[in-house]
């Protein structure tokens, strides 16, 4: 099952020409700068842009082609709007009932949706005196109660302060873990994407610049993400133990182990850590005489000139991709070429949350 889109939309100062496909599983982020067409693409999929031309196929059902245009209320999607769009004339419960009454199937019960989003204490409240985070949780519960095949989320965190964001993130994370509902997620924040998404579609000026697994996309040397100052790669790891003597937490990933300052995490938990390209250096042999704790055996996959002084190196440790930004001088001295086996010294890693 997958969602295949091929859209053309022309506006006065903007045109969208998108041809791509999303798997109907996990979280796919639509990422890119503002005005790049992320929200428009999401709205096209929801059927909210009647002037869009092209094709949309979900699984083996055609939602749009030259002859067909399934109206939005007949598309089995859930949509979480940036501003929540809760109905002001209904209470929180009224908003949820609105969705429940019209759902054609029942994949999740009222109580489940309420418990999942933690809004039990808000049910009788007016939607007008909820905080931003509460509004988005109600909007999420409402969208879930329409029992969608997949969920479209338009920057649900953008309007929230840091604290509310941190509060809402876990709910979105759990969507595909506990409810196995695939999510298409619009965001312009790379931290959010690095935290949540499995896959990414990079949109720029209404065109797809690239799409693929998040680790591939973040480290693809031809895309602007890897070439930015804050270029970061992501390691999916599991918590294996805590070192109480030195206050460290040990994580294991498929290319080795990582130590980081002690975090309050339970053993066995899956986490993502971010490694900035500027914090990674390369050596031929691991040295005993270094203060750097994390040294990972890697193979050089690709080298690309970044500017007159620096090169960008894409590294592979088992199935994990890393980025290193080093000087041209070092690259020449160490003979950094594709295929060479080396060690990556990682000066700092951080938990993505």
């Amino acid at each position, binding site marked *: 099952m997958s969602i295949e889109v091929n859209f053309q939309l022309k506006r006065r100062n903007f045109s969208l020409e998108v041809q791509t496909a999303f798997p109907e599983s996990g979280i796919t982020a639509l990422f890119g700068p503002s005005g790049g067409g992320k929200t428009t693409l999401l709205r096209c999929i929801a059927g909210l842009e009647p002037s869009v031309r092209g094709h949309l196929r979900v699984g083996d059902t055609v939602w749009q082609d030259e002859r067909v245009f399934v109206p939005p*209320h007949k*598309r089995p999607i859930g949509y979480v*709007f940036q501003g929540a*769009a809760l*109905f*002001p004339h209904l209470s929180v419960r009224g908003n949820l009932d609105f969705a429940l009454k019209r759902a054609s199937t029942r994949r999740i019960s009222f109580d489940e949706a309420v418990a999942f989003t933690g809004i039990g204490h808000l049910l009788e409240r007016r939607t*007008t005196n909820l905080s931003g985070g509460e509004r988005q949780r109600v909007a999420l519960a409402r969208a879930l109660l329409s029992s969608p095949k997949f969920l479209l989320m338009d920057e649900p965190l953008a309007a929230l302060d840091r604290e509310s964001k941190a509060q809402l993130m876990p709910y979105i994370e759990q969507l595909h873990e506990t409810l196995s509902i695939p999510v298409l997620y619009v965001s312009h924040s790379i931290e959010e994407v690095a935290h949540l998404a499995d896959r990414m579609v990079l949109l720029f000026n209404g065109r797809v610049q690239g799409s693929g697994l998040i680790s591939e996309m973040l480290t693809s040397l031809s895309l602007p993400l890897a070439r930015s100052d804050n270029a970061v790669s992501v390691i999916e790891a599991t918590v294996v133990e805590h070192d109480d003597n030195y206050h460290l937490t040990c994580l294991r990933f498929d290319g080795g182990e990582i130590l980081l300052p002690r975090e309050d995490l339970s053993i066995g938990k899956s986490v993502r850590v971010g490694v900035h390209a500027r914090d990674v250096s390369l050596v031929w042999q691991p040295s005993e005489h270094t203060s750097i704790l994390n040294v990972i055996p890697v193979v050089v996959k690709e080298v690309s000139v970044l500017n007159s002084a620096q090169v960008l190196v894409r590294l592979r440790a088992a199935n994990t991709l890393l980025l290193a930004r080093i000087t041209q001088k070092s690259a020449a001295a160490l003979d950094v070429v594709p295929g060479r086996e080396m060690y990556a010294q990682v000066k700092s890693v951080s938990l993505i949350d």
Partner: protein
Amino acid sequence: MLHEADLSALWITLQLASLTTVILLLVGTPLAWWLARTRWRGKPLVEAVVALPLVLPPTVLGFYLLIALGPYGPVGGLSMALGGKPLAFTFTGLVIGSVLYSLPFVVQPLQDAFTAISKQFLEAAATLRASPLDTFFSVIIPLARPGFLTATVLGFAHTVGEFGVVLMIGGNIPGRTQVLSIAIYDHVENLEYVQAHWLAGGLLLLSFLMLVAVYTFNRRFMVVNL
């Protein structure tokens, strides 16, 4: 106190205003919705026609209606061709005149209320599987409630208060087409100030109370919803 003729004028007035308001809500709601959402370039023309009774002397509207509803006019002629009577000087004629005359007082508040409804609520309803008709009744009408209240009261009160049009096309027939505003005029003409006072004072009080109700309810609604 009120004479029998005054009571029947009161009764006719209330019937006329109620019927007119109901018809206006039925006709005005889709018209106002269309005006609020259309991007058609001819929209200003339609808006101007709807607003005409606001600026036109009632006697002008009454004059044209008299001709149209009379035996040789298009509407009166049609009525006769269908086996009826000409509509001038009848209650039906009064209703037609009142509907046209009070149209802007119903359509404009509704149009304003519909325009103020953010598109995102309609889109949210659509993504929650509500058909357009479902959305109209479950989202748009509740959100436009203050507009409906204003439209109802203004349409009703304005019909109660009309004078020029009903004088022209109603003919002031006691018991059939004589309404309160004309009854007051007759009393003053005949120097029956006591009866004029009763009717005028009654209308003043009624109008005031209706407006107080509108402002009270609409304020309460706003406080809750904004």
